[in-house]
């Protein structure tokens, strides 16, 4: 009987690797997040509720979640397009562009923020021409969306690219031989195959945008009720030693972000189960 409990596994080292994984997760994830949630519970419900429902805070939720959704959606479309171009065509400078895609990962976000504000300020290289048309980017919500789009760029590209590379050309040929035109093939054959990857990229870009701080604070101008993002408010609260307020807002962010990622993962699970 004991022998059946201590089953021999084909892939050895389960105990060691699982133990290490849990230790790691504990040290870098569960303990900090747990402590933070625990700290939140020391607040009374009323102070918690009033901290998270201040008008200024609610306005920042709208910008943070709305801006992140818009930025992730932009990245979904253009990231897919970029991945398509990188996989399907050969052109000079392709390797360079492929390498540049990862730049938003590596460049300090503050540098990106300062670069963007220099470009898009009403006196900047790009901003001065946009100003002619009455379009203002720096210190507006549009600026926030641009910064969030920039930092989320690699996610969709890097999730879609390998899937597109593995997509058999024969599927498209089969579709064409059955009489489908190019657009129909893209809509009915290619898109469904890429859908799970697109969803993953979208979720990652969204999550990344939600947590972004460094690049946004430079271009947004941090005007209360208009261009303040939620992470900025958290930093502002801690600077005023309002740790409870910061923790309360942080909890809202945590729960909301977790719910949205869960939703997207659920959607992905559902589609992959359907399509095998």
């Amino acid at each position, binding site marked *: 009987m004991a022998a059946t409990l201590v089953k021999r596994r084909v892939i050895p080292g389960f105990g060691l690797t699982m133990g290490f994984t849990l230790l790691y997760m504990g040290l870098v994830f569960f303990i900090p997040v747990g402590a933070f949630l625990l700290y939140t519970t020391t607040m009374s419900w009323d102070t918690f509720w009033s901290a998270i429902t201040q008008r200024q805070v609610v306005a920042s939720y709208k910008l943070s979640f709305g801006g992140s959704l818009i930025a992730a959606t932009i990245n979904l479309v253009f990231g897919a397009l970029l991945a398509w171009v990188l996989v399907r065509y050969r052109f000079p400078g392709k390797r360079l562009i492929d390498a540049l895609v990862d730049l938003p990962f590596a460049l300090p976000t503050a540098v990106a923020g300062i670069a963007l504000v220099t470009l898009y300020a009403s006196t900047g290289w790009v901003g001065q021409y946009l100003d002619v048309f009455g379009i203002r980017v720096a210190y507006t919500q549009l600026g926030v969306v641009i910064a969030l789009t920039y930092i989320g760029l690699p996610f969709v590209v890097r999730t879609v690219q390998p899937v597109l590379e593995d997509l058999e050309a024969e599927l498209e040929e089969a579709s*064409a031989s*059955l009489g489908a035109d190019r657009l129909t093939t893209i809509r*009915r054959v290619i898109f469904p195959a890429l859908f799970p990857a697109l969803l993953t990229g979208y979720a990652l870009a969204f999550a990344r945008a939600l947590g972004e701080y460094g690049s946004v604070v430079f271009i947004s101008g941090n005007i209360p009720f208009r261009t303040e993002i939620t992470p900025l408010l958290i930093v502002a609260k801690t600077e005023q030693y309002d740790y409870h307020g910061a923790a309360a807002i942080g909890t809202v962010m945590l729960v909301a972000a977790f719910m949205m990622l869960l939703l997207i993962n659920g959607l992905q699970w559902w589609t992959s189960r359907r399509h095998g």
Partner: protein
Amino acid sequence: MSIEIDHVNKHFRDFVAVDNVSLTFRDGELTALLGPSGSGKTTLLRIIAGLEQPDTGRIRFHGEDTTDLHVSERGVGFVFQHYALFKHMTVFQNVAYGLTVRPRKTRPSKAEIKQKVMRLLELVQLDWTAHRYPHQLSGGQRQRIALARALAVEPKVLLLDEPFGALDAKVRAELRRWLRRLHDDIHVTSVFVTHDQEEALEVSDRVVVMNKGRVEQDGSPEDVYDHPANPFVYQFLGNVNLFHARVHDGIARIGDVQLPAPEFQGYKNEQGQAYVRPHEIEVFAGREHSDALHAKIELVSVVGPTVRLELRTDNSDELVHAELTKHRFRALGLAQGSDAWIRPLYSRVFLPDERVANG
């Protein structure tokens, strides 16, 4: 609908895939394009389909030039080696695909599509899988679905690229017999690519043997097997032994064995190579014929009902392969290491300077 291939050339960089090929596939015929990998057979098939453009030359369907017609407008059914089924669609949706992508004007009604798809699924004997996804089916089932999908658009010609290549031996043999019967029922002009000579000989009405982008021989399966046009076809279609032979006045001599070679009437003392199939070699336990060659049996392998022998003759470095029934082998009472006498029953001689003898 007949297919006419008129002086087609195709190269990829400096590799010549199809080298000035002209062929006509007759209406309702099932033709095998047979050749080793890299012989250009798949490229030729893809050119017929419109998946590849020829550098020069024309393709005509029933006299109508289709060279510049896009694959989606050519009316071909194409079956891929690895099925190329749409994974996110059910079997039903896969088969219906060619009908549902039609423009609204020519698209059949939902009920008509359903009726047609179910009829096709019955034809390939898989109507019970309609609501499954491709990954829930076996390889042989997937290929039958791929075939049903190709037939749904009522193609003028059916093109199959190594359709059984990814399947195991038993399923393969079943499926090719099934394809033969199916073709006898629906009679659509079909071309299939294969590197398996047995498959080509068993299934097709006609075999086109290709090598290095060229057509080596074109004829009925029996014709191609019994009368190979050149050494390549001889060697490609099954095992063969090579003997040194001397040709003189319509007679080929292998050692002391004299065999008729009427195509060499009038030739004097020419040196050539005689090609003899393993089953065309008679094996004796004793010296029953004065002209038989003496040999030693080096290896005996029993493959089901047949016995394959490897023998070494006295004056040759090369092994001779012979094939006989197990029954005959037992009657002879031979074993590994014993002496034997062999005699070719039939041979085909090719002279070194004339690759293609008049055959």
